[in-house]
Every structure is written in C-alpha cells, then in structure tokens.
C-alpha cells in the first residue's frame, strides 16, 4: 500500500494510507499514513461499526491538510486480535461410516447455502464448489492418513486453493450459526483450526505433505504461518 501511494502520488493523485505494519510505513515513507494497529484484514477496525469506521476515515483525510511530508500518525485506538475461538455449534455425527471431517462438512451445507442466499456472493469456488467440499476433505483425510499426495486427485491440482475453499466454506457457514456481535480478528480462524474436524484434517494433510518432501510454499500456505506443523 505504501508503494502504491508513491505511484499514485506521482500520477497526480493525493493519497492517504491506512498503515497496518508501522515499520513498513516508516521504511517506505508514503506521503501520508495513518497507522492503524487493528487486526490484520480489518483496516477500518470494527465490522458493522459505522461510527468507528467513519472516525478512521476522518482522521485519515485530516492528514491531507498537512503542508509537507512524509506524515505518519497513529490512530489512538489499538485493537488486538481475539485469540479465543468463536463459539459456534458444530454438526453432530450423522453418518459414522464417513470420516468425521466429511460428515461434518455435509452437516454445514445448509448453513452455507443460507449464507450464500443472504449475502448473494461466496468466495468459495477457487477450485471447488460448496457441494464438492466434503469430497475434497475426503482426499485431504486420505493424505493425512498416509496416502501419497502426489497420486491423490487433488481438485484443480492445487492444494492451497482447495484449503482456501474448505476454510472459506466453513467460515461463511459459521456466519449463519453464531449470534451476537461480530467475532474479533482470528476468532473464526481459531474456531476452524482448533475445534473443527476439517481444520484438523487440513493441518494433518499439511504435516504429511511436508514430511513427504513437498515444496515449502505448497504445504506451508495450506494454513496460516502460526499454525503448528510439528
């Protein structure tokens, strides 16, 4: 973002960056930056909080009054990521003949459909559709339990995209199953990786691929960098 600020400014457009990493803003020195120590992925701070978001924008636009730069100002509020998994019901076992992750994903299908109908859009679909999530999990389950990943029929041949679609399916479905205020940053990620069978399956497949000698980027980006790969 700080790099783009220089490019747009050179083209004659005044810029303000909402900085998310202070050291980067210091080093790249965009003309004007408001550093926002908020959860990554939430540069305006708080979902569904019009007053807070407007405050961020007003503070950012105020930097346009500066006569020279670079200008780097901190937003006075710090918002930490929420490390507690969001409280969200997980479907009970229905078909004991299936791997738990497959059974679980099937149980979330209607919730995901409700999410799609309410929002009118889904970010599932990079390589698989919502209907294909259970089968994709069956493939990762097999890899986690010893199948050679190089011969597994990974949809689209891209395991990173498969993991993206699976996690997105779960997180979008969960939006229909939780109540109350919006969960904090990382709370939904923690729910997926720490409490669901699918999250455990993704991490298991990731470990198996790493141990089988898969290239670093391929297995590493199946899950966030801080997730255990022991």
């Amino acid at each position, binding site marked *: 973002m700080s790099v783009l600020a220089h490019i747009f400014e050179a083209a004659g457009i005044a810029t303000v960056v909402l900085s998310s990493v202070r050291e980067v803003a210091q080093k790249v020195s965009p003309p004007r930056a408001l550093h926002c120590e908020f959860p990554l*992925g939430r540069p305006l701070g708080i979902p569904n909080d019009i007053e807070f978001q407007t405050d961020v924008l007003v503070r950012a636009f105020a930097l346009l009054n500066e006569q020279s730069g670079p200008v780097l100002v901190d937003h006075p509020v710090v918002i930490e990521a929420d490390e507690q998994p969001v409280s969200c019901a997980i479907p009970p076992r229905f078909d004991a003949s299936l791997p738990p992750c497959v059974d679980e994903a099937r149980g979330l299908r209607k919730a995901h459909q409700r999410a799609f109908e309410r929002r009118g859009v889904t970010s599932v679909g990079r390589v698989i559709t919502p209907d294909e999530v259970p089968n994709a999990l069956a493939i990762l389950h097999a890899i986690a339990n010893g199948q050679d990943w190089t011969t597994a029929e990974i949809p689209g041949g891209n395991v990173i995209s498969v993991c993206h679609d699976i996690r997105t399916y779960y997180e979008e479905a969960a939006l229909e199953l939780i109540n109350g205020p919006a969960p904090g940053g990382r709370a939904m990620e923690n729910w997926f990786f720490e409490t669901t069978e699918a999250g455990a399956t993704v991490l298991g497949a990731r470990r198996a691929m790493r141990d089988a000698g898969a290239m670093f980027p391929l297995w590493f980006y199946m899950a966030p960098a801080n997730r255990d790969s022991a």
Partner: protein
Amino acid sequence: MNGDQMMRARAATLPAPQFDNPAWVTPVALGDAKVAIVTSAALYVVGDNSFTAGDTGYRLIDRDRRDLILGHWSPNFDQMGIKMDLNVVYPIDRLEELAAQGVIGSVAPRHVSFAGNQPDDVSTIRLDTGPSAAAQLRQDGVDVVILTPV
C-alpha cells in the same frame, strides 16, 4: 506470538523499496475532492477474472457493486471481518455517507483492487500496473485515494 504479531514481525523484515524524490500532491479542498479506494485485498466483482497466485495486476470495481469476492491467496489475515461487513476493508458505504454529508466532494465511479502478496521487488506494480491503475483513476477525475491494506 499470535498470528498477527508474527505476520507484522515478518513484514517488518521484508525489503522496502526506496523512492527518491517522492512526489507530493497538494489536493483540492476535501469538500471538493473526488475520492477513490485502492485496496490490496484482491477483491473482484462476480464475473470478473479472479486473482492468480502472485498476480501483479489490478481489477476495477464500479461504485455500485457490492457483490465482491475475496481473491487474496494469503491465509494469514482475518477473512471474516470483510464477510460480515465489506466496509471494514472497502469503505464504500462510508464514502457515500461522507459525500452525502458534504465532507468529501464525491465518490469516484470506479475503485481499484490489487493483491497484497506481491513479489518482493514490486517492479511490475511499480513500473506497469500501478501507473496504469492511477491513469484509470485520473481519467475519472479522482483527486484523492484512500489506500486500505489487508
């Protein structure tokens, strides 16, 4: 170290492109300014081309579109905030409100989305796609850009 702390620590160590003699634009008064959003969230409208891994291009988003797909390849940031409220990354409704209140002059007809996970040298975005996106906004008469990262 939690996920956000880890990613911030990593980002702090990445190579930082240098800009000699950086430009400085003195904008028109905010109340007269046409404002656009430029985000690195890899958002794109339904029906547009998705972002590939390492995509150095950009997508344009018409002002009235809210059916946006999150096309970012990194698993290392919260992706649910934007699913709950687009404005937490792409504050288009906030800009509309500020325009209606006369705080800003107007909202640009088109906005820009890049993918944040760029090659370290950022040469393509610096020499090619970045200036191209800026030219598109200049055509629309944009005076001010607010840049939102993920």
